[in-house]
């Protein structure tokens, strides 16, 4: 059975970029355009990993990660932040709220595949 990865990003092009990179590796990919939609999608699928942006409307990445970590059934899902924010403040905050990895945009498709492979096969 294919592993399912949820991508939360308000940029349709980034959602496509990441989807391509991961579908090529044999993953199933579902997408959300903000944190709110991601939270709504979570109970509908067995998500194995989440890749999220930080700057998003309605619910940003920090709030999304916090919401995921507060839910017992989702608290162990690996989360990778993919953001153009490169400041140490955002990086530290992201990791403190519960992200497992932090990647910056623009990203190398191989690097994201590597990052995902650290958590799921």
């Amino acid at each position, binding site marked *: 059975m294919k592993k399912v990865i949820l991508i939360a990003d308000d940029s349709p092009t980034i959602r496509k*970029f990441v989807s391509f990179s991961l579908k090529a590796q044999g993953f199933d990919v579902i997408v959300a355009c903000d944190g709110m939609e991601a939270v709504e999608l979570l109970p509908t699928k067995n998500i194995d990993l989440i890749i999220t942006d930080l700057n*998003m409307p309605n619910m940003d990445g920090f709030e999304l990660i916090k919401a995921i970590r507060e839910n017992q059934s989702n608290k162990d899902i690996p989360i990778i932040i993919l953001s153009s924010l490169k400041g140490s403040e955002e990086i530290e905050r992201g990791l403190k709220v519960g992200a497992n990895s932090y990647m910056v945009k623009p990203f190398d498709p191989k690097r994201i595949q590597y990052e995902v492979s650290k958590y799921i096969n």
Partner: protein
Amino acid sequence: MSESTKNLSDIVTKLKEIDNVFKFGEKMIPVIEGFVSFISDFVPFVEQVSGSIQDSRSKIPEASNQIDKVTNATELAMTEVLDKIDEINIDLNDISNCLDDMVEHRIRAEGYVTELCKEIKDNENAKVIFKKLLESIDVGLTLEMMKNKVRQITANTDQITMSLQVQDITAQQLAAVNHLIISVQHKLGGLLEAFNSTGYNSSDNLEISKLPDVHFDANASYNPSSNQQDDVDSIIKNEKASQEEIDKLFS
């Protein structure tokens, strides 16, 4: 000094003061005239400024819409390009699989020819023909070269994918510009309100656009070098937090 003499002296003093006031007034008249003239000149200027503000403010929604249109158009074009790249990648994958099949077929054919050569022990002519046949189907090098080409094209499409991420960065920069000009519109709206409160009535009835939420990185920059990720990697080492610290971030 009698009471009446004192009163007369006071009256003379007051008259002198009044005289001084008149003299001062005479001196002030040109100044006041100058001031009135300045105000008369200033009113059209204020009206002109107000008109310019109105004009600038009315153009801002249009500028903002144009920026949105640019973002949407590039986003759409990028999505189309990405779909095509995806198709190319799928085709490349199919070609790669076909090449693998061809290599297998070639190896199998080579095996059959070798077996045939063993079967026709005494027929030297047949052996020579089979050897030639073996040489003619030996396309191993060509296949390897084709596979390398496919790998090279795949690497190039990966590079294109990476470069196209510039669209996301420019979209964020445009969102920042949009936010800035809508903020300017708000400021100009405030100025017009200030004009109106002084009695001057501007004819501006334009609604002020809602200041959009900030969900972009105004400092987003396109730099595809791996150094940025290396910097992040060096920061994230050994980052671990307690629940208390997590809650503090949202308090």
